[in-house]
């Protein structure tokens, strides 16, 4: 009997090796092609309907413009309750947890009362068991015209990931973004930054790297790089962070994002704690350090009550010094 079990374990390995050679990407592309092709036969009748609809729409637009002008001039457009945001400008599926419920990030465009500036409303919908979509998060991105693809920071030990959603104003060259956590079927905002000039975001080695420009006293601009390290508590109270090691330059900022009053220790004092920031928006869950000295250091994020701390090693490089 044992012999057969051993053979079945070998068969499992054989199967794994056999199925690993299957080109799933190619099959997926074929499926999408078939789906796309299945829409084509409707085109001939579509073109007739299109012409008919275009004519109808044109007529409708003329009537609507006339109505809007008439009401607008007399200042009667005050009640916005009937105004609909309409179709989203982008949609993206996101996976915040391992549940079967799918979640969608939608961005809607809307105008301010001056009807000049563009704003975006980010909404996260959850497709519930009942089949209905429920709104579980929303946030406004003021003066933004482009939604950006979300980024994910994955955590070890089955902890839920952290999401970063962002938008861009490509005329003014600034971004807004939100760092979102997920716990107990609820989404919460860990931190948010707005009007980040020449902002650039990148998730690297488990941390969020933000690059921004800030004005200097001599009317020039300085580039500031900030590394955001989110952390969470697991069920036993241990601190869980997505990064083990950080290599940064002297002058870079490091921000720990997690819980209020969490003790953070820097062993060799190469990083200096700053109570406030002149560069970014801070909240009670954020702790800011600036890399003042080159060298190696260790940071311990300690839990307030029982549980294991998280150790992160940091290497600070002085890029202004010539290397040997």
């Amino acid at each position, binding site marked *: 009997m044992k012999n057969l079990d051993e053979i079945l374990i070998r068969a499992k390995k054989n199967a794994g090796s056999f199925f690993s050679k299957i080109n799933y990407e190619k099959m997926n592309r074929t499926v999408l092609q078939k789906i796309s092709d299945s829409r084509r036969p409707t085109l001939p009748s579509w073109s007739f309907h299109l012409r008919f609809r275009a004519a109808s729409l044109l007529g409708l637009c003329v009537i609507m413009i006339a109505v809007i002008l008439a009401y607008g001039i007399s200042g009667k457009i005050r009640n916005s309750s009937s105004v609909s945001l309409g179709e989203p400008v982008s949609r*993206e599926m996101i996976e915040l947890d391992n549940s079967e419920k799918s979640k969608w990030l939608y961005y809607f465009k809307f105008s301010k009362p001056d009807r000049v500036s563009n704003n975006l409303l980010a909404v996260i919908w959850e497709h519930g068991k009942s089949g209905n979509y429920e709104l579980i998060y929303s946030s406004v991105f003021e003066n933004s015209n482009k939604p*950006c*693809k979300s980024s994910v920071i994955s955590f070890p030990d089955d902890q839920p990931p952290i999401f970063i959603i962002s938008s861009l104003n490509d005329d003014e060259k600034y971004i807004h973004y939100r760092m979102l956590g997920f716990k107990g079927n609820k989404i919460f905002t860990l931190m948010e930054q707005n009007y980040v000039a020449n902002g650039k975001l990148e998730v690297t080695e488990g941390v969020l790297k933000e690059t921004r420009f800030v004005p200097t006293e001599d009317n020039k601009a300085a580039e500031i790089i900030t590394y955001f390290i989110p952390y969470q508590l697991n069920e036993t109270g241990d601190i869980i962070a997505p990064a083990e090691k950080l290599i940064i330059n002297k002058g870079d900022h490091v921000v720990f994002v997690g819980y209020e009053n969490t003790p953070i220790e820097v062993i060799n004092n190469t990083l200096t704690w700053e109570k406030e920031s002149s560069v970014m928006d801070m909240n009670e869950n954020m702790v800011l350090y600036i890399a003042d000295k080159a060298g190696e250091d260790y940071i311990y994020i300690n839990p307030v009550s029982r549980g294991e701390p998280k150790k992160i090693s940091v290497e600070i490089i002085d890029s202004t010094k010539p290397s040997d």
Partner: protein
Amino acid sequence: MDVKSSAGEEITLRTVKEEHICYLMQRYGKQVYRLAYYYVRDRYLAEDIYQEVFVRVFRNYDKFRQESSFYTWIYRITVNLCKDYLKSARYKRIITAGFINDDQRPRELNRLMEEAEGGSVFSTVMELPEKYRLPISLHYLDGLPVSEISRILKISESSVKVRLHRGRNKLRELLAKEGRV
């Protein structure tokens, strides 16, 4: 200043359904392919079934009301398609044309090629009759519990256990013939 990267990358607009199908293929595609293969024992036929499964998922997407999980729903579509395929005229033509010797054996050429790639023990498991091949493969090769197999194959848990027991005996017989146990 370049404002690209993750923050500057614009989202391409696809339909919600298509995005979801992509996600479902990523998440369940491998299991679907394996299940189809256990039924038809031919990688090209399994590819056809895989594609047809997700095209059907797309077509019937609006009818799905989450009474079961996507996982169970997609598995059921796969099982039904495989059964339909094995009953189909196309499959029977392949058998009568001599590509498949009988309904218990995969196409010889395919089998030889796959034996080299996947190992002879796996091929012996694939030679089991369908009744035993499916529970044995899903349990021992895919690691699914009896309860899950019962849901997928729509048979009782006790039937799954009986088939696993008899399937093991049958497998032992086949392996003994080859002098491996």
